[in-house]
């Protein structure tokens, strides 16, 4: 593999490891990432039944610190960060003044006035610019794009805790869902959070980039006994779709509000002013006019993103995410429907290359998330 040849894409510290493992590499959000190793279906089922290992080092990390760091985070992130204890994280959104998505993210409280925001790979610069331009007026808080200081690995699946425990002194049994702790994993300094994008119990491990390969190898070895597989972006997408987790750029973007996306639960309604607050409060009072709904095909085929959705002769929306997933073995997807149609049981049709395939609105998630035994209320 000639790594010296010029590539316009960025590479994670594990690039050489992926190539050596025979991964099929593809461009994604400006990065060269593994799409699959042994096959998307294999990898998906490994995560559902045993464990899978993902390189998500391409994600961005933006740190906000300073005497008014909490106020700054409260201004730009829609969820209520004041509810976070040190050692807790929460899912949130960076919103526009219209209440729509600049990006979705996780907010970690590292210390009383020190926060880590984990954002999507393709949006790091845009997110940083959005944050920096809005927190200048909030005391002396500063935002730093610290992405180059972190590599990030995810271990997901019912056997993730068992295999990871063999590598760390951190007591994973008492690490609550959405909690995180600092310690060592395979003798590498790390921060372990009980978070993920698969719908299974699992962990995301932040380490220095130079330690990423050693950690990957250690987890791979420890995982041999439980049948751990390396997993790429293909399985990452089918897994998150079954768990009905939104994908920024597909299901949520600058044209969709948090309420329309069914993410009103991530909004800190009682917070003082935050970017998007006024628009969301207005929308809440007036009633949302369209909602993100999950559906399942009744007829054969696959509903792919962009396929138009009909009720009778009326076009009512277009598929935002959709595929046939390996665990459920059904064609599922999401679509924004007029609010009155976004109810389980409503019959719709999806236009698949000129053919109308029957489908039905179903509750989300399509696959029930398997929350770990110990939960905290963030």
């Amino acid at each position, binding site marked *: 593999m000639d790594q010296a040849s010029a590539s316009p894409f960025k590479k994670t510290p594990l690039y050489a490891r992926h190539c050596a493992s025979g991964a099929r590499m593809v461009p994604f959000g400006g990065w060269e990432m593994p799409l699959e190793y042994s096959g998307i*279906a294999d990898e998906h089922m490994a995560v559902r039944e045993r464990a899978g290992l993902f390189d998500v080092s391409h994600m961005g990390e933006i740190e906000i610190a300073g005497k008014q760091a909490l106020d700054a985070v409260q201004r730009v992130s829609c969820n209520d960060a004041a509810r976070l204890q040190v050692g807790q994280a929460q899912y949130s959104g960076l919103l526009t003044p219209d209440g729509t998505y600049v990006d979705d993210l996780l907010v970690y409280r590292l210390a009383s006035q020190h926060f880590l925001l984990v954002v999507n790979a393709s949006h790091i610069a845009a997110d940083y610019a959005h944050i920096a331009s809005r927190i200048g007026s909030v005391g002396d808080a500063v935002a730093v794009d610290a992405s180059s200081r972190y590599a990030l690995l995810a271990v997901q699946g019912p056997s993730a805790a068992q295999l990871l425990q063999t590598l760390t002194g951190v007591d994973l049994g008492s690490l609550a869902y959405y909690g995180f702790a600092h310690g060592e994993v395979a003798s590498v300094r790390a921060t372990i959070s009980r978070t993920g994008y698969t719908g299974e119990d699992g962990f995301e491990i932040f380490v220095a980039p130079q330690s990423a390969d050693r950690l990957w190898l250690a987890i791979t070895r420890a995982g041999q006994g439980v049948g751990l597989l390396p997993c790429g972006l293909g399985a990452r997408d089918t897994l998150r779709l079954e768990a009905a987790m939104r994908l920024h750029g597909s299901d949520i973007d600058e044209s969709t509000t948090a309420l329309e996306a069914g993410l009103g639960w991530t909004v800190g309604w009682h917070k003082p002013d935050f970017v998007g607050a006024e628009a969301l409060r207005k929308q809440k009072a007036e009633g949302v006019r369209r909602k993100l709904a999950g559906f399942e095909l009744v007829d054969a*085929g*696959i509903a792919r993103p962009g396929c138009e959705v009909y009720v009778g002769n009326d076009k009512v929306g277009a598929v935002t995410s959709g*595929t*046939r997933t390996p665990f459920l073995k059904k064609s599922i997807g999401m679509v924004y429907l007029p609010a009155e149609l976004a109810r389980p049981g409503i019959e719709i049709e999806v236009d698949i*290359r000129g053919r109308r395939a029957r489908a039905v609105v179903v509750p989300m998630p399509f696959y029930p998330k398997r929350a770990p035994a110990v939960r905290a209320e963030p």
Partner: protein
Amino acid sequence: MVYPAQFKYTKDHEWMDLSGDRAKVGITDYAQQQLGDVVYVELPAVGTALKAGQSFGTIESVKAVSEIYAPVSGEVVEVNSALKGSPEVINQDPHGAWLIVLKLANPAEAGTLLEASQYAALVK
């Protein structure tokens, strides 16, 4: 993978099982492996006239939607409609799951197709 010796093959990964002036047409094991799980098959109506190389339908898998091409010219005299309900048979038994039966317009065209050994070499 053993490619049946009595079949003829195309570069587009179709097989043809000729008997007199009738031929069953399907896709090869290589093709079904490349496609992944087949979820839907669109086939032509009985009576459709096809020229050699003309597309006569599509096979849809998670990965892609692929056209299928007539190996030789002829008229569609039978369509395997059972595949609508069980498209996965194409993955399970690619050399048994026929898609259409063609009545050949010009039997001499069969001579331009690949033999099993030639096709196997192509997809090695």
